[in-house]
């Protein structure tokens, strides 16, 4: 399976990963529209962690044991055995926040307007996830890891 990882020493803390993630998960796929016009406002599934001088980006790690999927009360969160990805089905999500409680990385976001959670899907529709492709300093990479 693939995992996105951050190289702390390369991260400048610019936050463009969040901007591009938000845009990629918007309806319009347009930065200005995504930030100013879309309602509900799309949510970035990557989070820039900052404690100066330390900064790095974190998003769902698609964990092998996937505590979120195991704890999910509705079956909305599932570990896909074939791709290794942890998938989230918004239509099944009831916004109980159990996955939020058990995610060791605090990588699951709350979509307050939609009363559901939002998390990294590795932009499977793209060749390279948007955060990785648009990091100006190569601080994010996606690589094959042992499942």
């Amino acid at each position: 399976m693939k995992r996105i990882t951050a190289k702390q020493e390369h991260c400048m803390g610019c936050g463009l990963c969040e901007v591009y993630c938000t845009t990629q998960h918007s309806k319009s796929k347009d930065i200005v529209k995504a930030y100013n016009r879309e309602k509900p406002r799309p949510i970035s599934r990557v989070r820039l962690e900052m404690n100066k001088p330390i900064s790095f980006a974190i998003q769902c790690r698609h964990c092998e044991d996937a505590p979120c999927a195991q704890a999910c009360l509705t079956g909305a969160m599932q570990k896909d055995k074939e791709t290794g990805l942890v998938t989230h089905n918004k239509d099944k999500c009831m916004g109980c926040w159990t996955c939020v409680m058990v995610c060791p990385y605090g990588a699951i976001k709350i979509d307050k307007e939609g009363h559901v959670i939002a998390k990294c899907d590795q932009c499977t529709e793209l060749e390279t996830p948007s955060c990785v492709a648009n990091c100006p300093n190569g601080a994010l990479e996606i690589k094959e890891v042992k499942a």
Partner: protein
Amino acid sequence: MSKYVIIGACAAGIGAVEAIREVDPTGEITVISEEQCSHYSRPMISDFVSGKADLAKMKTRDDQFWQKNSVNLLCSKKAVSLNLEGHEVVLGDGSKVSYEKLLLATGGKPFVPKTEGQEKEGLYTFTNIADAERLADKISSGNAKNAVVIGAGLIGISVTEALLKRGVKVTMVELQDKILSLLLDAKASDIMEAVVRKAGVNIATGQSVQKIVGKPGNDGVVGGVVLTKGDQIPCDMVIAAIGVIPRTELVVGTTVKINRGIVVDNQMQTNVPDVYASGDVAETYDFVLNQNRTLPLWPLAVLEGKIAGYNMAGKKTDYAGGTNMSSLKYFGVPIVSIGMANPKPDPTLEIIVKEDKAKGVYKKLVLKDGVIVGMTFLGDIERAGILFYLMKNKVNVKEFKAALLADDFGLAALPMSLRKTMSLEE
């Protein structure tokens, strides 16, 4: 002869099936469920009553789950007795299912306190889909304008919110002095109580329902309740939402050891060979209290079922334990509360609290010897899972505890050595 027999098709039963199939792809599995519809999410029944979810949305696994896992599913069948020596389960219709390994995942049943007038029509429980359907039908009939909910814990608050959404006026009656007292301290409970009251709910704490009275002219139907202090509250229905007690009746009188729930070891095995128990019916390990006890929570039941499944299939696996842990979504206030969030006064415990009234945020950590043993996050919960990780792994947080409740707390606030352990860069 079925290699594996599982009684109960809810959280623990599903967890067990998945674990068994990871280890043993072909061994015959039989699952016995007294319910008509299996594998729906019980925590979702409040969304069913409020109209937010239908049965299709409530399915926790896809429709082919049982077929895909080659499970022989016996629905609407009740296991009525066990012949442990003969390795047999006896069903209500007299038929027998024999097993090599048996899992008791019979769950919990709603606790209804003995109350005068409880036989009247209009008393509901709130545990399974049948309960929820009855309640939803009653509301749809238009003959349910006012409800009394007994119990202001997790179940009480969930059913109250659902009733409110359906336009029913609710009075919550809670024996303890505070609502959500098993999860929250006084401060957090007060915040929540104010929110619930503001939504239009009446709350009577420190009281119980002494008597259920009938409607004038129709005594067989619920017309109101009388509380311990004498207050009379007219209502069309009463919902007992106190909690569940382990459904141990199947093993009562057998050699299976029962305390409050069925006693199991860390591999979910009972004292009887080849017999396992998991979920609400079992007493499982609480890693905070360092003792076994009943912890009737869905995510723990799934995990316990998994552990049982692995061990039944021959893969020795120990349970790391759970604890009292809940996330709440009700009345627009997200809450995560875990472990000893509301401990009795104890000089060996260190308590750190942070409140931001303007933002509606309250955070609390309880530490013992530098290790988190309890926590409550209210209003801002997105990073609570990191703290739960530290708690579960008994990480000493003494050196960086000040950062843990900061608004901008995150992984970057953790020491580098710890971030390495979490293998953030791998």
